[in-house]
């Protein structure tokens, strides 16, 4: 299988491990802290939301890895899009992602975020999350077990420590026109405020 999702996932997982050696000590330290303290905005878009409570509570206790749930996008580092996304939900997901502070990452949870999953022919769910938002890690399955989610977090930690220039939030900034075009194509006239227009780049 040379095409499709599996090689894409491969490319997400083992990406530029070599970069690590070229970083300065301070950059490595910063990356270490980022990787070991992940504030998660768990957006329960679909049925994947049901797998997150066990992940966060006593049975699987993901707090061991430094993962904590937060309520607002302003404080979050990682956005989990859990399951199918209808266009109405996607708008809110995008808004939440844009309100997060950089560096920020997205985990797509479940088959629906990858290729529509069992809703592949539904008129009201999107089929590819990475058309609209830069996904840093996919966890597939329907639904993925908490173990799979933890595995996804571990892989994401490696990716954060690699401090790649290909990280999703950088892509979202540099290739914003591409993502915006896809969003506008889906949402028609009812579109979100533009990402660049939300901020004045001044330092107060």
């Amino acid at each position, binding site marked *: 299988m040379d*095409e499709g*999702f599996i090689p894409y996932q491969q490319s997400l997982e083992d990406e530029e491990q070599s970069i690590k050696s070229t970083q300065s000590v301070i950059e490595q330290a910063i990356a270490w802290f980022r990787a070991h303290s992940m504030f998660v905005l768990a957006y329960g878009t679909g049925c994947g939301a049901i797998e997150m409570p066990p992940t966060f509570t006593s049975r699987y206790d993901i707090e061991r890895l430094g993962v904590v749930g937060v309520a607002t996008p302003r404080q979050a580092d990682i956005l989990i899009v859990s399951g199918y996304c*209808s266009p109405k939900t996607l708008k809110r997901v995008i808004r939440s992602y844009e309100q997060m502070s950089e560096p920020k990452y997205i985990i797509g949870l479940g088959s629906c975020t990858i290729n529509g999953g069992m809703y592949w022919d539904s008129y009201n769910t999107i089929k590819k999350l990475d058309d609209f938002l830069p996904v840093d890690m996919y966890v597939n399955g329907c639904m993925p077990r908490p173990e799979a989610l933890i595995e996804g977090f571990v892989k994401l930690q490696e990716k954060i420590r690699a401090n790649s220039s290909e990280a999703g939030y950088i892509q979202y900034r540099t290739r914003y026109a591409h993502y915006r075009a896809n969003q506008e194509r889906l949402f028609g006239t*009812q579109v979100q405020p533009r990402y660049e227009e939300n901020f004045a780049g001044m330092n107060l």
Partner: protein
Amino acid sequence: MMSYLEEHYELIHKTPRLFALHVTREQLLDTLHQITTHTSFDTLSQLTCTDWIEEERFELGYMLTNALRSHNLMLKCSIARDKVTMPSLALLFAQAEVMERELHEMFGIGFEGNETLYDFALEGWCDIPPMRREFDTLAYVNAHYDFREGREDNLDVKEEIKKRKAAAKSAKETPSGA
């Protein structure tokens, strides 16, 4: 309770606890009013719609529940597919407002007197209402969404699982045999 209904209407017994009766669009409000005042069926618990495209009609089902929540009565009302307005029940039952809003979005049925018939679950929808049977879901999906490369949905799942199991078995046996 039942005696009143038996007396005045042609009741259809579906199950011991579920009854139905047919009303016309014009009779609907009056019948509902009579039933709610004379019997204990006082709650509108569901509002459904069936698209009988072959017979060119929608059948709306107003499901009433009694105070004990033990019996259900469905008022069936057929309307022509091209003449798609109904009187709103929002004044009789507050919960009808949101149910009618949903039917409006999914079937394109208008409700006179309901002020909230704007976007509900679908924002900015400008195609045929999606629950009407002439709406072609697959065509819509193909037109509006991109599929990921490499997805193959046409596999016969049972066959495929059998095949993979056999492959795994043979792979296991080969090293042990070798």
